[in-house]
């Protein structure tokens, strides 16, 4: 072995334990978030099972469900309607000039109505409700958890998974499609107002042109897609809230993580469900 090769070999021998240790710490830092994510999913699954199991047992918590329908539905309506209207107006403004450029101005009502009903209405409703309701549920249940109110419910012989979680999840599932309808309606009306300001057209004609060639499945599948968004928002927000710990700081973390995770999973579910709908409702 040459002198140079001996020197290199010595360097390798000296550095090998250090390199192995670096490799181990790099792998550990890579594995830690994956492990945390898998663990989170596991606990979410257990939580979902506990909620499902509790939901089939009497009593059925009708009073609490009605309170939550009001909380999720009526109180989200103004924000959802406003967001829907804003999207409709922006769509009309943006699409108008593009369609005029391509000589397809007559397609404007159809472009607005289809894009609102198919995608923007459901996703905007999902994201707005993720923010408003997800944060609300996460903070409320988180606060109940850290002040032992959930323990007090359990100590009274009442199942908190049914009373607190199932009612909120069911309210989200039931209200999301209705809120989506409201967002769609406000979006179409706002689109028509913007369109008619530039080029007067009656609402009846606008709607007729917009819905020309549309079938019932164009309307039904995207709207009911939001029931899945409701399931995601309700489940994640309740789960994050009920596992909250660490005082007021923990409550803040629960509220934030509820919104972030619910929004993220709503977007992911949207991608998957759009593909699913295109396959089954071509």
């Amino acid at each position, binding site marked *: 072995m040459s002198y140079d090769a001996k020197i290199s070999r010595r360097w390798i021998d000296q550095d090998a334990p250090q390199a192995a240790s670096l490799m181990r710490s790099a792998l550990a830092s890579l594995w830690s978030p994956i492990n945390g994510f898998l663990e989170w999913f596991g606990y979410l699954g257990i939580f979902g099972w506990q909620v499902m199991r509790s939901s089939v047992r009497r009593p059925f918590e009708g009073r609490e469900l009605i309170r939550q329908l009001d909380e999720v539905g009526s109180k989200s309506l103004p924000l959802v309607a406003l967001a829907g209207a804003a999207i409709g107006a922006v769509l009309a403004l943006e699409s108008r000039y593009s369609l005029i450029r391509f000589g397809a101005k007559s397609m404007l009502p159809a472009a607005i109505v289809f894009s609102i009903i198919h995608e923007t209405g459901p996703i905007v409703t999902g994201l707005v409700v993720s923010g408003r309701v997800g944060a609300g549920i996460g903070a409320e249940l988180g606060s109940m958890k850290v002040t032992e109110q959930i323990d*007090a419910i359990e100590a009274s012989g009442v199942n908190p998974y049914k009373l607190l979680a199932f009612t909120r999840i069911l309210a989200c599932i039931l209200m999301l499609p209705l809120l989506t309808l409201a967002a769609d309606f406000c979006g179409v009306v706002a689109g028509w107002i913007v369109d008619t300001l530039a080029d007067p057209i009656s609402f009846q004609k606008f709607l007729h042109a917009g819905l020309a060639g549309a079938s019932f499945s164009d309307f039904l599948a995207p709207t009911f897609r939001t029931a899945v968004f409701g399931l995601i928002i309700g489940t994640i927000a309740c789960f994050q809230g009920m596992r909250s710990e660490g005082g007021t700081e923990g409550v803040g973390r629960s509220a934030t993580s509820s919104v972030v995770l619910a929004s993220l999973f709503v977007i992911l579910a949207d991608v998957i469900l759009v593909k699913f709908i295109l396959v089954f409702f071509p």
Partner: protein
Amino acid sequence: MMQSGQAVTPLATENGDKHAVENAARNAAHPVAAPPVLLEGLHKSFGAQKVLNGIDLTVGNGETLVVLGRSGTGKSVLLKLIIGLQKPDSGSIRIHGQEVSSSGVEALNEIRKKMGFLFQHAALYDSLTVEENVAFPLRRNGNMSPSVRGDRVRGLLAGVGMQDHLKKMPSDLSGGMQKRVGLARALALDPGILLLDEPTAGLDPITSREIDDLILRLQEERDVASIVVTHDLHSAETIADRIVLLHQGNAVIEGTFEELDHSKDKFVAEFFRHDS
């Protein structure tokens, strides 16, 4: 001071078998009845931290057992294990002979209805009024008509001196008032067992004495078996029939207040002279 793993020191045995005689008399009066609370070999750890290391305890009918110990010795955990809010690592918890730790959800809820729990910070539902808080267990677990339920709620709140605050929200109440409402809620289902977690913590001496008097009055009127976790030696002296002192996960000594107060054990002596 006793070492970890040693058995409970029944001071009664050293001091004339007073409790043994009382227990024998109680057992003779109810030869087949299981004790309201029976704990055997209870172990609980959180990660590497051992909180309870083989606790054995029995609480008889109408008896008030006070659990003392330094902060973090597992006193509140003990109460949460008894009511099934946490699961023990091993050991047995029997409520009137029914095993808590192996019970399913429905059976556990039935056992819980026999117990009233006062939480350290009262844990009142902050979206409900005082009246609704006390009515909550009744509404959920009973078949009472609204008028009967209303009468019972007002009666319970009158019993703790809160009859004039029915419509107030928990946030409008002082700490002592919240504890009183919490106590009324704990008594709503007329439980045979009361678990009180630091009932006088954070209260001024006058309010503490009022809460102690209230607990004594409840003992006389209702004959419930109570386990009271506290740091308040004055309160322990007032309300306890028997005291158990926890240290390092073990019940190091058990007896009346006077017996523990005159103990020669180094830890007990230190606790009773300096930890009040």
